[in-house]
């Protein structure tokens, strides 16, 4: 199996995207302007001054204890609180670690029935979003800062005026706004003659509830139970990356992936136009154009007796027929998910699922999901009302419609006389508002959520508000003249509405305390499954003319773009393109060749009738040839420095198609500009030449003979003797069958280990600092590649090549098998990085910014902040291992298996990582280390890495269906 990492490599040329080695030292322009002589003058002076000062100076440091002892607070000891993630509307349960009064790390709550311990990249990055000095620091009126009483007084007059004009008031909110916030908003809206709460989602799924309205007579979004699906077909649905509930779906999905689960491995089929994270994990994948989704679903429905064979190309019909047979064979445990926000497709998808018997088992209609409550049709009507001047006031509760809705919204918005923004930052919409009443960050305030019927969650504050902000809920209550603390309001609502529903909850106080401890409460939601009825036929959408079609994909790092101000997320490489700091136009290799374009070429792209925008080209294997794919969530115009200028806002290329938010249907124009740009990708370096770094096997032969999975190559001999090991010896195993490449671990590592952000230019220079990266490999053809995701961090080699070459013994072996890096001893020769075969060592080329007054609060006090000129790398989260050992020793007992766990393992939504003490024969890691699927990366070097991987198992016969795949 030939594995390749980029197209350049596949074609035998690794394109040096930049004249990186033109200069002996590839340093920045500012440094190069200084002459050599001046450099020596300044450094000599600096050295002497430093020496003189450091000799005798004594920094006087003050220590300020509490005036009054805080109950349960001991300085230096972390406290954990259960709360609910506000990063997106999925409502994952998190445990927040608070150190000395400030949250520094978020981890998935293992008890939470949704995410069950995992947390995605966006969730992990939330602490950095909290400590953002560019958030709104207080209320504003007419662009000028004011105080809350002044704002309230002014607004109550303005609301009074709106009442007189006709009282047509709209509150726009996302699905993130919890039921209590909605109740407060409704209380506020109730004081107007025509007050309405409208919800919309930037990454809209509104066609799904609308489809169920037609097929089942109820507007609902079924709760999807992927763990029940034995055959799973995704049609343009990136459920592992960006769709509805990525962390929860990944957990459920991974529970059926690989051969070692209690239940047999699922079969994952994916039909899609771009290569999504989900598609990259599929056992089988079929490429289609976005406009073929309807035809594909119709072809799938035909064998189920749901309509005629559609007009389509043969390859599509064949694939659909074959997969339909597979789904039928597993009726009752087969599921089709469609991600297209189009009513005809979703109605058909609902009918197919009904015919497959998915309802009840794979799709829960009695306790539906509440994660996507947006209603595009109502939103469209509201925009029309606004445009014709029939709205007197609009309040934006945590949404940014001027960024993520079609441009028509902005024009209509300005026709509304009173515009109140209640977001966190001075974003595109806030700039267009007349008044700003900034909300708390979710880690600063009280909130609640209801991810599904029968699952209510609460969010509690971890820190006093950093700025003069006020909870949106409290603002609504203040404006109706009933000011109340958010906590009291939420508690009262829970006492009234939820406590009676929970059987055996005891007194409300006990119930509330238990809820706060756990972060959520699950209860029986009495509901009856609505019955299916055949819907009336829908008019077909016109098939677009022209050679190309626009696909707007969600982005794993950016989500709906609300997090674009967060530099941690900007620097997270996209799991597929490995692009950071912005988006690009993805083209299939064939299309790129036809247009004469290569990776990094600039093009001007515009859907029909819209102005052109410049985008760099990414050549994307596995993409459909007619598809022009652009990631959403980039190109912010305001709301935080990090997001500015990073990419192009593709939300502007959407419109309402049949009432639902979708890409504009007109044929997009594409015009090469003849210029190139250097992409800040993490691809094409860390180059490991032609070795078997990832392994794959089909399920059937593995089940016949698991031992056949054992790698053939010998583990190389070592010229050195064994290291003596102490009480523990740590090891890690990563199951490539489970890892989806979601990158939650990358961000978890970043938050835990104070990893700096280096910025676009430095990433382009291949100087990103992530201790844990995910290598993405392709195998097979350019058209139908198989994709591998392989988390790669320091392998903690027993005979580490880095250790041998360090001239100052800054990197040495520990008796627990760790390859230690002592920052204070490192002199920065970078010899170790040069000698590392995995290229996982990171060098601090600069003093990276860590000292923003607010931003520094996100630092983990248990980990040293590294300075310029030293090497760093994954430590297996040694501070967490020590904390666990200390806890055990202080309690006078032995360390238990599973107590010491690195941040990456803790946050992995797929539970792909196993870590533990291999000297403990009963530990989970000792069992996994004996798995025949286990292999070492570069094992032949004989350096004894402590990290190993489990061969990926693909639930597809390697030879059986290859022929049918070459469509397009």
């Amino acid at each position, binding site marked *: 199996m030939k594995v390749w990492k980029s197209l350049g490599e596949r074609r035998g040329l690794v394109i040096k995207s930049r004249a990186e080695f033109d200069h002996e030292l590839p340093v920045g322009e500012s440094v190069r302007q200084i002459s050599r002589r001046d450099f020596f003058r300044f450094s000599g002076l600096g050295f002497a001054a430093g020496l003189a000062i450091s000799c*005798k100076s004594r920094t006087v*440091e*003050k220590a*300020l*204890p509490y005036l*009054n002892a805080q109950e349960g607070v001991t300085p230096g000891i972390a406290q954990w609180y259960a709360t609910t993630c506000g990063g997106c509307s999925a409502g994952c349960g998190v445990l927040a670690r608070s150190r000395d009064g400030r949250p520094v790390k978020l981890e998935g709550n293992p008890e939470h029935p949704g995410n069950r311990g995992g947390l995605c990249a966006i969730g992990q990055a939330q602490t950095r979003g909290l400590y953002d000095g560019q958030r709104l620091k207080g209320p504003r009126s007419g662009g000028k800062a004011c105080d809350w009483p002044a704002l309230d007084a002014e607004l109550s007059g303005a609301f009074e005026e709106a009442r007189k004009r006709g009282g047509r008031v709209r509150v726009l909110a996302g699905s993130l706004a919890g039921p209590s916030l909605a109740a407060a908003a409704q209380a506020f809206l109730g004081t107007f003659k025509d007050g309405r709460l409208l919800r919309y989602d930037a990454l809209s799924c509104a066609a799904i509830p609308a489809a169920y309205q037609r097929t089942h007579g109820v507007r609902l979004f079924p709760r999807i139970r992927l763990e029940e699906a034995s055959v799973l077909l995704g049609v343009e649905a990136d459920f592992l990356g960006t769709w509805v509930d990525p962390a929860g779906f990944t957990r459920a999905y991974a529970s059926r992936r690989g051969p070692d689960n209690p239940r047999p491995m699922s079969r994952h089929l994916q039909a899609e136009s771009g290569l999504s994270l989900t598609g990259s994990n599929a056992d089988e994948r079929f490429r289609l154009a976005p406009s073929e989704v309807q035809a594909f679903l119709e072809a799938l429905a035909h064998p189920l007796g749901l309509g005629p064979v559609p007009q389509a190309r043969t390859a599509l019909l064949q694939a659909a027929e074959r997969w339909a047979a597979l789904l039928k064979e597993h009726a009752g445990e087969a599921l089709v998910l469609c991600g297209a926000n189009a009513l005809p497709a979703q109605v058909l998808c609902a009918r197919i699922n009904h015919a497959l018997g998915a309802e009840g088992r794979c799709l829960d209609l009695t306790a539906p999901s509440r994660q996507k409550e947006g209603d595009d049709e109502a939103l469209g009507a509201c925009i029309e009302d606004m445009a014709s001047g029939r709205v007197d006031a609009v309040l934006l509760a945590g949404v940014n419609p001027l960024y993520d809705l079609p441009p028509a919204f902005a024009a209509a918005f300005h026709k509304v006389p009173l515009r109140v923004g209640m977001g966190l930052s001075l974003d595109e919409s806030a700039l267009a508002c007349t008044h700003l009443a900034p909300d708390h960050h979710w880690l600063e305030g009280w909130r609640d959520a209801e991810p599904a019927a029968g699952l209510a969650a609460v969010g509690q504050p971890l820190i006093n508000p950093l700025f003069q902000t006020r909870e949106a809920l409290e603002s609504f209550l203040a404006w109706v003249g009933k000011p109340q603390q958010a906590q009291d309001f939420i508690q009262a609502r829970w006492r009234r509405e939820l406590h009676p529903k929970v059987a055996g909850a005891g007194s409300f106080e006990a119930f509330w305390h238990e809820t706060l401890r756990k972060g959520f409460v699950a209860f029986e939601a009495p509901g009856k499954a609505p019955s299916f009825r055949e819907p009336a036929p829908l008019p077909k959408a016109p098939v677009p003319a022209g050679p190309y079609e626009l696909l707007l994909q969600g982005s794993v790092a950016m989500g709906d773009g609300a997090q674009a101000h967060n530099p941690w997320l900007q620097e997270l490489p996209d799991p597929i393109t490995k692009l950071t700091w912005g988006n690009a136009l993805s083209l299939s290799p064939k299309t790129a060749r036809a247009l004469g374009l290569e990776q990094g070429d600039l093009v001007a792209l515009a859907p029909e009738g819209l102005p052109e925008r410049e985008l760099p080209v990414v050549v994307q294997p596995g993409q459909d040839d007619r598809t022009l794919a652009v990631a959403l969530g980039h190109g912010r115009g305001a709301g935080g420095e990090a997001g500015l200028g990073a990419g192009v806002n593709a939300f502007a290329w959407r419109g309402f198609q049949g009432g639902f938010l979708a890409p504009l249907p007109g044929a997009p124009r594409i015009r090469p500009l003849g210029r190139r740009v250097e992409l800040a990708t993490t691809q094409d370096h860390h180059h490991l030449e032609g070795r078997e770094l990832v392994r794959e096997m089909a399920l059937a032969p593995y089940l016949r003979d698991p031992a056949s999975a054992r790698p053939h190559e010998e583990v190389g001999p070592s010229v050195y003797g064994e290291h003596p090991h102490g009480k523990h010896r740590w090891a890690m195993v990563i199951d490539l069958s489970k890892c989806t490449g979601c990158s939650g671990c990358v961000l978890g590592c970043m938050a835990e280990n104070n990893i700096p952000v280096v910025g676009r230019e430095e990433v382009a220079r291949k100087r990103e600092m992530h201790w844990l990266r995910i290598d993405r490999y392709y195998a097979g053809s350019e058209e139908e590649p198989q994709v591998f995701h392989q988390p790669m961090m320091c392998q903690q080699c027993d005979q580490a090549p880095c250790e041998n070459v360090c001239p100052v013994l800054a990197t040495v072996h520990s*008796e627990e098998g760790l390859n230690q890096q002592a*920052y204070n001893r490192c002199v920065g020769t970078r010899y170790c990085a040069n000698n590392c075969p995995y290229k996982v060592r990171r060098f601090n080329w600069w003093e990276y910014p860590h000292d923003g007054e607010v931003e520094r609060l996100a630092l983990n006090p248990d980990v040293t902040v590294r300075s310029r000129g030293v090497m760093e790398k994954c*430590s297996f989260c040694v501070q967490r291992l020590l904390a666990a050992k200390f806890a055990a020793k202080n309690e006078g007992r032995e360390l238990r298996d599973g107590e010491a766990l690195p941040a990456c393992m803790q946050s992995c939504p797929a539970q792909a990582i196993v870590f533990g003490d291999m000297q403990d024969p009963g530990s989970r890691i000792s069992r996994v280390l004996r798995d025949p699927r286990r292999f070492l990366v570069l094992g032949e070097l004989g350096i004894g890495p402590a990290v190993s991987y489990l061969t990926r198992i693909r639930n597809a016969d390697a030879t059986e269906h290859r022929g049918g795949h070459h469509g397009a």
Partner: protein
Amino acid sequence: MNVRTVLLAGAVALLASLTIFALSVDLKLLGDNSGYKPAQPIAYSHALHAGELRMDCLFCHTGAEKGRHAGIPPASTCMKCHEVVVNRAGTKPGVSDPSPEIARLRQAVQSGQPIAWVRVHRLPAHVQFPHSRHVNAGVPCQACHGEVQGMERVEQARPLNMGECLACHRAENQKQQQAGRAPGAPTDCTACHH
């Protein structure tokens, strides 16, 4: 040579001579702060509390057996004794101690301004020292902090450098090994540097 170079060279020479002068006054190694004895905002006497009155260190430094920091007690801890239980001047419980130092303490509590003690013992930022492991392993506080119970004003008694840490850890491990037990004091880099 232009004027700028001459000025630069002069400045370097001046600083170098200052350095040599400074080193000639005190020959302690860089970073050795032993003997540091700053004045504190309140002239709190460890000699009185820990020495004469034989109060246990952990009575006030409650974090020492739980976590990383031993901690400086909050003013409320001081006031528990000084306002409620007893005081030196012999006034009845609940009646204020007339001492000016106690007045400062009381003023801090009343004004809501925490007392800004001057930190005496300070390890470099790249060292992580867990008090709890040492206290729970039976290391007396005096091993590192000196005879604090005799100090009117706290002074850093020892250099607290890495050599001292390692000497103690190695001696401890040797002792354990001689007694036939597994050595428990780590000497790995990452035990303190991470």
